[in-house]
């Protein structure tokens, strides 16, 4: 082989995490096939379409970028904290704080729906981390049945051995993945166009991840009040495909 090609490959191998098993867990967590019910949510996109704020691929791109910015500003601190400190106390504390922070009823219910499903799947699948199941059981036992998505996501990443940079990027990724998937089902873009769009947005998503990552909880804020207002209208839609 060419010496350049061998060198490039060596460099890449040096970057592979020491624990390769982790990669398989990472891929599974990010795979849309994981049954967390993400496919049931449009992140306010369906309401935005019915309010005629999004009607084509250009609007869609703008919408997704604003959504990602808001996801970063509002939710990454929760992912960050539980990845860094994946203990029962921290998780329960953050769950309570996020419940008071997600003042949008539609968004709050979506978060709980996805978080609870994710916790259930992870506790069942990642058996090498017995604390997942025990934390879930303890919480359910003490009456806390609503698990919000972002803290659960960070918790699982932390317990599985992921670093916080990866877990925060991963959270942005799954949000982007799900809203684009919703866009195809809402006929805003076809599957091929969706893939093109996703790749175009990736660099923006990375920039946003960098901007909002590693922040304390007190910094959590929303940056898209118009989108928040729209998402709150989801319950008023006469006919709808999605839960949120």
């Amino acid at each position, binding site marked *: 082989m060419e010496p350049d090609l061998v060198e490039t490959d060596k460099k890449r191998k040096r970057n592979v995490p020491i624990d390769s098993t982790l990669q398989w867990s990472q891929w599974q967590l990010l795979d849309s096939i994981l049954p967390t019910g993400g496919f049931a949510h449009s992140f306010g996109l369906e309401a935005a379409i019915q309010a005629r704020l999004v*009607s084509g691929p250009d609007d869609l791109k703008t919408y997704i970028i604003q959504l990602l910015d808001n996801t970063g500003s509002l939710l990454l601190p929760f992912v960050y904290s539980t990845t860094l400190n994946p203990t029962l106390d921290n998780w329960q504390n953050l769950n309570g704080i996020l419940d008071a922070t997600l003042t949008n009823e539609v968004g709050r219910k979506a978060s709980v729906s996805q978080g609870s499903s994710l916790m259930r799947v992870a506790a069942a699948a990642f058996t090498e981390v017995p604390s997942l199941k025990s934390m879930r059981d303890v919480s359910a036992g003490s009456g806390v049945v609503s698990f919000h998505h972002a803290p659960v996501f960070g918790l699982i990443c932390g317990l599985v051995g992921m670093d916080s940079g990866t877990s925060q990027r991963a959270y942005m990724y799954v949000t982007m993945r799900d809203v684009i998937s919703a866009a195809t089902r809402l006929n805003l873009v076809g599957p091929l166009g969706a893939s093109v769009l996703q790749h175009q947005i990736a660099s923006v998503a990375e920039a946003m991840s960098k901007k909002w990552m590693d922040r304390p909880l007190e910094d959590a804020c929303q940056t898209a009040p118009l989108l928040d207002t729209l998402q709150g209208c989801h319950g008023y839609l006469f006919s709808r495909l999605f839960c949120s």
Partner: protein
Amino acid sequence: MGSSNGESRRSSWWRMEKEMEKGKVVVEKVRGKSTVTRSFSKYPLKFIIPRKVGPSETDAVWIYSLTYGGGIVSGDSISVEFTIGDGCTAVLTTQASTKVYKSSGSKCSEQVLEARIGSGALFAVIPDPVTCFSTARYFQKQVFRVVSDSSLVIVDWFTSGRHESGEKWDFELYRSTNHIFSEGNQPVFLDTVLLEQSSPANIAERMHDYQVIAMVIIYGPKLKLVQDQVQENVKRMMSQQLHIPSTSLGHHAKTNSDNCLTRPAFIASCSVFGPKGIGVVVRIASTTTESVYRFLQHQLAGMQPLVGVPPYH
């Protein structure tokens, strides 16, 4: 927020530790009537407390907050503490919209309100909107500490600027925080809205044609009827505005310009929050300030028996 870590001090945003002399207003029952028993304000803030607003049967005290010069200048820091005693009703309002003047250097203007609301008390914060001028940088923080049977009405809203003169979403930074804590420092409502120019796009692009963003919090036992009515009204109003577009979407979509005329001029949504749905928050985006005033007038009219005069009239 009673967070489990000591990171709050390291956060670049909070300068709460900074020593500032705070304005103070205390409302207590005196001979059975809600009365301001203490009122202190530090320049540039000034309080005007009329002897009586509304009919004598209504027990409520109205407090008007003014700033010398009619606005907040870059570098101003205004901080006030309110204590609303058990069973009292107090209304805090303004005489005109709060103007936030342009920022000099990268200085910010800031307003902080901390309020403690007692048992069976009602505190209504119903100001005119904040208007940030071009390049302004503005922070606002409002923290409300309530007990199980306190009631609150909080209207927090801002416009795109002097939009009649063409200044639309031209400020540099706007950040508004509203927190509600119940007994034992339990967080009930934690919200911060942050708008920064060119992050990601400029604000005007993100807002489309909407010129006003508003939030109305209606909380507690005294406002149950108002809450129920608002939820019903908003649902009815918005259900008419939202529908699946008749144009076909996908790669045959018409351009944006064909649809933008039919966007709702006024969008509102209601969410329930807090234990047992004790609170309702209404979020609004509107193309005109007048329509928001009308909405507030209409939706808060039910408060008249509580505060003496209907808000926003």
